[in-house]
């Protein structure tokens, strides 16, 4: 564990250096009077750090995309596009393929590709021994090329180590009153009763408060969560019933029934070797850790089936769990790549996923602004995913782990404004020692932590499903560690594990919306999600005795550093379902100064949020006899209505930090809630009408 941390710290140092270089590129782009070489250089989106040899991601202009089509084919052993300059470069690089990164799976997908410019992205395949920088410069020099991206490898937001589940004498949890899964009492992260046999620092309430939410819904099988990760063991006995099944593909007939270019993509697809995509999902390659299967189980392991664990949105035992689409973007020691993740996000969009669950990303600091990230293929895919409507929202939800380098910023893509970045807390309701925090971080969830006041408690990590075969664990260099994964079920820790808690709760919220026949804009739902939290800052005083990430030893972690930096608070499933139901209008009394708490709208951390404004029309102000728009002071809306009447106003705040992120700097996401005010001469203390 300690060695891993030291290696990670080294990676972070390297990231900082890279960041400086990238920032320089961005400034070059903004300057005027660029030389030709600068112009070419400015098309290079990233650096060669962690670049995967043998290919480049290339963006061309619309005319070239139209000319090249879905793929450039070979003629006489060489690629021929019909565009002379491009063909010359193909020849010089001995290129073997130039293929769309985002295929036209069907007519709808083709239209989406055109709408978002995804038809302009290609993967250029070249021999692995070709120098990538030279190749990139040659390609970038072409007039019709608008961007060149090295195919960077991603890192999982977890060390891949799992701990075996051992039955404990855990007291029955509140959650186990509703569902009968045999290990549910050990899933403290759902309903934490403060059982110190699971971790000596366990605190009651350090959970996602899902137990009561399950009384209203356990899920809806029309909600799809795409898990972009290692392959999910789709035939796991506690997952199989909740796996998404491609309705247009017949299993095992070795035929591409839905004519999307992928044979037998039954429960998802394998993008690990993108742009080659197959329907065979694997989870037991050398180097696999069970990460994808663990993450999937937190989202939607089959609940109330009398065995194993429950998932956050795993249903009620009646086939109503949300569906897991396994999109494999990592394989063995190969890790993920930009090509894999971007193509997988695109598939999720094509097949109707509502949420992409992503426990991976760049190390924090590799990118430090949306401008840098927004030029990548992964950003292009995310943009389309979050902007294209589905049957519940007017855009999908992209949920990412904030990262595990104990840095004071989220890594990308989590930090991207269009993504939901999840930080991790431990069984004590305090930040896990590894979690990233600060700019870009939006919301906290249980990620677990083995160390409790200096003692080892594997049960204080997150319990979920694991592949049914033991996997050799490898280090970051791909060497065997001698450890094997736990089988069937096991404990893991990381923002990787926190992330699927938020994905699961969001899926539960979407399920409830679907049950109620309600739809929302993505902005509305995201604002509700960020406002469905409990206050984590109340626990952030003094220190906790745990592993110190950069020192690699036990010590006192200063909790004050995390105050205001873990996001809006820690996720609460019950609160989200209440927000989905709707909020009552706020009844206030005429002639008296009103201090209306924003907790119902922005969560229990409302008093600590930074508010960016209140909007109220002149007609609405007049309806209440107000001379000016109300203001928010310390989390309370302050105003004195003079007239009885009804009005609406909109309050905006920052989810995560005290500044809004922009193209030039990291920060939080601005969220808004509309509030109905009814000024009366009568108002009861409990909000009742009479």
């Amino acid at each position, binding site marked *: 564990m300690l060695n891993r941390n030291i290696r990670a710290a080294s990676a972070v140092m390297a990231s900082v250096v890279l960041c400086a270089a990238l920032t320089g590129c961005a400034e070059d782009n903004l300057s005027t009077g660029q030389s030709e070489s600068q112009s070419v250089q400015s098309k290079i989106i990233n650096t060669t750090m962690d670049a995967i040899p043998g290919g480049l991601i290339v963006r061309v202009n619309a005319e070239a995309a139209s000319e090249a089509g879905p793929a450039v084919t070979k003629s006489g052993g060489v690629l021929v596009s019909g565009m002379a300059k491009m063909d010359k470069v193909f020849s010089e690089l001995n290129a073997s393929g130039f293929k769309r990164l985002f295929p036209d799976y069907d007519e709808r997908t083709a239209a989406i590709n055109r709408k978002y410019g995804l038809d302009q992205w290609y993967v250029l395949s070249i021999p692995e021994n070709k120098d990538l920088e030279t190749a990139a410069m040659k390609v970038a020099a072409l007039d019709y090329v608008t961007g060149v991206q090295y195919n960077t490898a991603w890192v999982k937001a977890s060390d891949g180590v799992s701990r075996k589940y051992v039955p404990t004498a855990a007291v029955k949890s509140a959650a186990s009153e509703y569902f009968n899964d045999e290990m549910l009492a050990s899933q403290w992260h759902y309903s*934490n009763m403060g059982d110190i046999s699971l971790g000596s620092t366990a605190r009651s309430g350090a*959970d996602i408060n899902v137990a009561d939410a399950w009384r*209203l819904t356990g899920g809806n099988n029309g909600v799809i969560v795409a898990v972009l990760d290692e392959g999910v063991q789709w035939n796991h006995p506690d997952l199989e019933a909740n796996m998404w099944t491609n309705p247009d593909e017949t299993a095992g007939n070795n035929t591409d029934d839905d004519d999307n270019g992928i044979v037998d993509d039954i429960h998802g697809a394998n993008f690990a070797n993108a742009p080659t995509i197959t329907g065979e999902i694997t989870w037991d390659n050398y180097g696999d850790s069970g990460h994808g299967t663990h993450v999937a189980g937190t989202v939607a392991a089959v609940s109330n089936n009398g065995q194993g664990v429950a998932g956050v949105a795993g249903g009620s035992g009646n086939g109503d769990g949300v569906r897991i689409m396994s999109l494999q973007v990592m394989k063995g020691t190969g890790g993920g790549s930009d090509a894999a993740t971007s193509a997988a996000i695109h598939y999720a969009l094509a097949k109707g996923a509502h949420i992409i669950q992503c426990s991976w990303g760049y190390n924090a600091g590799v990118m430090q602004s949306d401008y840098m990230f927004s030029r990548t293929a992964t950003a292009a895919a995310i943009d389309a995913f979050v902007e294209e409507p589905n049957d519940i929202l007017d855009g999908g939800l992209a949920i990412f782990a904030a990262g595990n380098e104990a840095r004071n910023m989220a890594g990308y893509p989590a930090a991207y404004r269009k993504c939901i970045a999840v930080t991790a807390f431990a069984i004590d309701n305090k930040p896990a020692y590894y979690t990233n925090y600060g700019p870009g971080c939006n919301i906290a969830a249980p990620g677990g932590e083995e160390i409790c006041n200096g003692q080892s408690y594997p049960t204080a990590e997150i319990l979920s499903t694991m592949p049914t075969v033991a996997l050799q664990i490898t280090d970051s260099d791909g060497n065997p560690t001698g450890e094997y994964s736990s089988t069937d079920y096991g404990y893991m820790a990381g923002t990787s594990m926190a992330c699927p808690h938020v994905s699961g709760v969001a899926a539960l919220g979407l399920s409830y919306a679907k049950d109620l026949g309600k739809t929302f804009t993505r902005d509305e739902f995201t604002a509700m999600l960020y406002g469905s939290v409990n206050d984590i800052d109340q626990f952030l005083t003094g220190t906790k005795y745990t592993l110190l990430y950069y020192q690699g030893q036990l010590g006192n972690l200063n909790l004050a550093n995390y105050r205001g930096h873990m996001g809006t608070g820690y996720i609460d499933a019950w609160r989200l379902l*209440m927000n989905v139901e709707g909020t*009552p*209008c706020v009844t206030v009394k005429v002639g008296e100064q009103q201090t209306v708490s924003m907790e119902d709208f922005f969560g229990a951390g409302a008093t600590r949020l930074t508010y960016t404004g209140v909007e109220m029309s002149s007609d609405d102000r007049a309806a209440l006899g107000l001379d000016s728009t109300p203001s928010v002071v310390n989390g309370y809306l302050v105003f004195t209505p003079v007239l009885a009447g009804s009005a609406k106003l909109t309050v905006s705040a920052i989810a995560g930090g005290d500044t809004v992120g922009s193209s030039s700097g990291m920060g939080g996401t601005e969220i808004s809630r509309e509030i109905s005010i009814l000024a009366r001469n009568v108002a009861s203390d409990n909000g009742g009408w009479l």
Partner: protein
Amino acid sequence: MLMVSAIACKKDGGDPAMVDMSGEWKLSTLNGTGTDSMFGGEGLDIYLYFGSDGSFETFERLQDSEMYAHYSGTYSISGYTASGTYSDGTSWGASYTVSLSEDGATLTMTAGSEECVYAKTAIPSEVRDNISHRAALKSTENAEAYPGKFL
């Protein structure tokens, strides 16, 4: 103070000063403004139930929702003045002066300068079937203490 059960006197031709509020009502105007026009046309839906046994219920539609906040409790009436207490022990925001129209189709409840006019309307089943669970949230502060109780 007479309990609501004494209202039967009026039906029996007894004390003419007693107002029989029992029945189901829907708010039609608040200080003369029609509820349909409130909140920029989104409207304000309030239903009341007064039982002859002294029980009451209120239903208020949530913002942007088809679900209703539900409260219940007991009430009493003395002459033309009604007062009540919610089941959580909170008193009504005021005591109301109440009156019925000649045909019994309209109930007017007045407190200070506020006048609410209710029309006799059967509470639709979809209102009772769509009760929000939010009250359970409002009753507590800490996550671990949420009872999540149905009302």
